[in-house]
């Protein structure tokens, strides 16, 4: 009865198929060893019943080993592709055994039962040849014993024994046969023979004239062939030869770990690790890189279809002559790592605290605000309740400002923003991608309780300002609406007044008041300066914000936060800037590498108030 273990294995994968197709399998299992031949038909018990009895059997009989035992296989009937087919699962040992029918007298092995029977006749042992029956023989299908294999699933069983044997050795077996010419290895001898016949008959010719008989040496050569490099330098549009030095080699970097980690956790239980490994190793197998005669397919990208081979030149003249060629190859920027950082799954919807607070209407008394912000700054771990977002009707009850701004700002930010976005992002106006990224970042920082960080700090600082501003009923977060700009200007005086009064009245909000130093930031050597860059957060567009943040937080331990920046900014605005680039004002005075060049200085030149 030692086959139940196997039966169960087969069914783990069976199960799903059953479910998906809504079929009911009639499965019965038969134990078959070399001594006793039992016809599959003789046992018609349902699989179901076997399991019913399973516990009894296993307790009364021998202890199971969870491994395959040789000389046994399972037959089950199922009604999927062919209801009459028997599904046979052989153990690896049985499958690989060349002579699995062993004579008990002389230990001679036979591949077929019939042959053994004939042999037994010579020993004068009882023998029995299968008689031809009128009945059509039952079709048999065979399972691959490797649990991770698709053919382990009865619905994918293979139709003949030789097929499954070859499959098993090819896919899961040792590659014993090695081609002497090209060192390629094969698990099945016949494969190796077939390969040996053709190996070396193909020639690989490089454009430089060298001939290769082996593909891999050809590829290696192509990678470094000087002739090619020179050729491409002379004719940059000769796409066929261009850039060979970039991609010549086998660039298959198989990210095993990456793959593994990206597959959702759900799966981790089921595909055993061998599966992953297989994935990792399978890719590089075929590199069919032969000489291709022509440049088979170049698509002109502009709407009209180009027919000449001078396609790209033409394009360049037409539209965008400035674009550097071949740029993208090397481009693969740090961006990816950046995006990995910044877009954790499911973080998107965790940002409830931020806009809610921003959007709190002007119903709040200024006293409240000051109170909140001061505690927020001076103490750590304050929970800020949701008075602010009542008007939202939001179901999210509590809004968390759990960390004191000063605490984690430095570290959190540098990790988030150290990969600042590339310059081209800056020019894109309010790109949705950037917005989403920002949302995700904010979400991620809030959702993790302890990593905390600046965004929380940032958000709270921002919301303070917002709240303050909200008292004046001003929508502050606008960078291109003319109306709100006006309102900014109008409110300039108010704000300044407010800020002054706040600063004067109590050091609770700004620590040491007029000095612009925040008491709350003492911990990590925060210095405040006049740059007011923080105040820009609400007005700059996304990419710029990143840049700003990178400046302020990422680069150094120093924090350049300034809450009086609100005042400063409003003053700036009062000064009459109306350009979207306003944000750049402050940036330009920061660390040089973060200058956004012309834009910044341009805007800065006319409007700075420093």
């Amino acid at each position, binding site marked *: 009865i030692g086959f139940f273990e196997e039966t*169960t294995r087969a069914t783990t*994968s069976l*199960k799903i198929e059953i*479910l*998906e197709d809504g079929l009911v399998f009639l499965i019965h299992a038969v134990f078959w060893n070399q001594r006793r031949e039992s016809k599959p038909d003789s046992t018609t018990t349902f699989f179901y019943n076997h399991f019913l009895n*399973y*516990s009894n059997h296993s307790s009364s009989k021998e202890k199971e080993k969870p491994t395959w035992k040789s000389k046994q296989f399972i037959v089950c009937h199922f009604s999927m592709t062919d209801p009459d087919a028997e599904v046979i699962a052989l153990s690896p040992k049985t499958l690989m055994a060349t002579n699995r029918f062993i004579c008990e007298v002389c230990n001679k092995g036979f591949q077929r039962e019939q042959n053994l029977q004939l042999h037994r006749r010579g020993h004068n042992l009882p023998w029995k040849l299968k008689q031809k029956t009128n009945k059509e023989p039952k079709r048999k299908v065979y399972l691959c014993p490797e649990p991770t294999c*698709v053919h382990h699933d009865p619905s*994918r069983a293979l139709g003949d024994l030789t097929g499954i044997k070859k499959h098993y050795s090819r896919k899961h077996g040792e590659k014993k046969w090695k081609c002497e010419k090209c060192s390629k290895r094969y698990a099945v001898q016949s494969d190796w023979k077939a390969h040996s016949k053709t190996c070396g008959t193909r020639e690989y010719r490089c454009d430089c004239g060298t001939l290769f008989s082996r593909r891999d040496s050809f590829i290696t050569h192509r990678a470094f062939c000087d002739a090619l490099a020179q050729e491409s330098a002379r004719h940059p549009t000769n796409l066929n030869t261009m*850039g060979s030095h970039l*991609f*010549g080699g086998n660039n298959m*970097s*198989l990210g095993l770990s990456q*793959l593994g980690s990206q597959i*959702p956790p*759900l799966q*981790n*239980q*089921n595909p055993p690790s061998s599966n992953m490994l297989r994935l990792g190793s399978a*890719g590089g*197998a075929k590199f*069919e890189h*032969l000489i*291709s*005669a022509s*440049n*088979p*397919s*170049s*698509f002109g990208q502009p*709407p009209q279809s180009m027919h000449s081979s001078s396609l*790209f030149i033409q*394009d360049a003249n037409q539209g965008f002559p400035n674009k550097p*060629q*071949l*740029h*993208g190859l090397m481009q693969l920027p740090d961006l990816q790592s*950046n*995006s990995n950082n910044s877009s954790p*799954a499911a973080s998107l*919807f965790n*940002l*409830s605290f*931020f806009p809610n607070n921003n*959007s709190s*209407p002007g119903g709040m008394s200024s006293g409240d605000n000051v109170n909140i912000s001061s505690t927020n700054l001076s103490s750590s771990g304050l929970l800020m309740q949701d008075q602010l977002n009542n008007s939202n009707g939001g*179901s999210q009850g509590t809004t968390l400002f759990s960390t004191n701004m000063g605490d984690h700002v430095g570290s959190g930010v540098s990790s988030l923003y150290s990969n600042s976005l590339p310059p*081209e992002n800056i020019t894109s106006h*309010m790109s*949705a*991608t950037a*917005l989403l990224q920002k949302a995700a970042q904010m979400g991620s920082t809030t959702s993790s309780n302890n990593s905390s960080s600046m965004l929380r700090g940032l958000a709270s600082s921002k919301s303070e300002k917002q709240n303050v501003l909200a008292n004046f*009923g001003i929508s502050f*977060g606008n960078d*291109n*609406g003319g109306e*709100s700009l006006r309102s900014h200007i109008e409110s300039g005086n108010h704000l300044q007044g407010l800020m002054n009064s706040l600063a004067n009245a109590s050091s609770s909000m700004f620590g040491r008041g007029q000095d612009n130093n925040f008491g709350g930031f003492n911990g990590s050597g925060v210095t405040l300066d006049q740059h007011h860059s923080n105040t820009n957060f609400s*007005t700059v567009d*996304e990419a710029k914000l990143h840049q700003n943040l990178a400046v302020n937080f990422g680069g150094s331990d120093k924090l350049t936060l300034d809450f009086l920046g609100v005042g400063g900014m409003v003053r700036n605005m009062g000064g009459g800037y109306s350009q979207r680039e306003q944000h750049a004002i402050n940036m330009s005075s920061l660390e040089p590498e973060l200058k956004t060049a012309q834009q910044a200085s341009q805007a800065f030149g006319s409007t700075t108030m420093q």
Partner: protein
Amino acid sequence: MARTKQEGRSSLTSSHESSPGLGSPYPWLRSPQSEEGGLQLIELLGECASHVTARCLHSVNTRLEHISYLASPKGTAIQRIASYFIEAFADRMLKGFTGLHKALNSTKISSVSEEILVQKLFYEHCPFLKFAYLITNQAIMEAMEGEKVVHIIDLYPVEPEQWIRLLQALSVRQEGAPHLKITGIHEQNEVLEKMDLQLKEEADRLSIPFQFNPIVSTIENLDIESLGIKTGEALAVISVLQLHSLLAVDEEVVRRNQQSLQQFLETDLNHLFIASASSSTTSELSLSASPKMESFLSSLRRFSPKLMVITEQEANHNGFTLIERVHNAMKFYAALFDCLDSTKSIAPIEQQKVEKMLFGEEIKNIVACDGAERKERHEKLEKWILWLELAGFSRVPFSYNGRVDASTMLQYYSDGYSFTEENGCLVIYWHEIPLFSVSAWSFR
């Protein structure tokens, strides 16, 4: 140019929307063009998604009201995305009221020519499909070297240009052009007829023996036997943004069956299976793709294709939860909308058409549909690799020729596009967002 377009757009909308700060019914809503407004939109969409999940009609209604105040199909990218998402949300909610839903959609006209036009616009103004075609053709050329009879099965031919290019390339092949047979599968006969005509013309011009075999069908209903695959042909199967529709399964049926079997097993097995069964509920499903996909791949495999090139959206829009799908789809389509924004050549009205009829419909399908109806089950490359390898295919790396061509081509569109090689497959990016993957396979 882009700048002027942008400003034109935002000024247009700002005059239309004015600033919601003052005098608006929702004073707390930010101006939608501002960054904060955008963030607020994203947040509201997220909230809305969770309310839709909870099927809380009242809350959804309130959110939709707020969002529709901020969103606009002509506004900034995020405003436009929001428009399509709320439409999808509403559609999903309405599906609960079958009568309403049916009545509202009872007079819907699907215009084939419009759909084709939109696809053409997308093809022309975004480099993605061209990238895929170019890489595909290169792979075909390489895989079919020396072959005398080449049969290409195109699971969704939209653009004849791809095959015209291939014909041209084949005609100058060193060993001479092969006999080329292209089987095109499309649900619209007129697309196939047009393609037939164009390709035959080109083949005649180049005097390549050519045969076009049109099959009017969807990929789901495709009868593999009807493909007319003959022994001796070198077979290439090309799928551009099609294969994912085979993942459509009626999850309800699966789940119900699973439960019944689980009970069936649990009672008998004394916990032997409980752990594995519960964990396998989802994982094995995804491990084994879908029955349709499996049977499709395995029946293809029987014909031992020499090459199979698969282009797919590089995103997971097949999550179990709506929230997950919404989240991923927002990220993905945000990038696509940004791509379109950066495209100089497309006219605003054309852009809106692409957004509404292509992206908007996809969003709607991802968000509003379930079960067999949900066809846009985009999955990431790692899944495809898993499934295809399980189905017995092995990856074919792309040659540098194709990649060089492709990267040059991308550069002409915008600096924002790039691609990487990941696990031997190519992934095309818009800035840092992966958007489409191209992978080549062969029968082991």
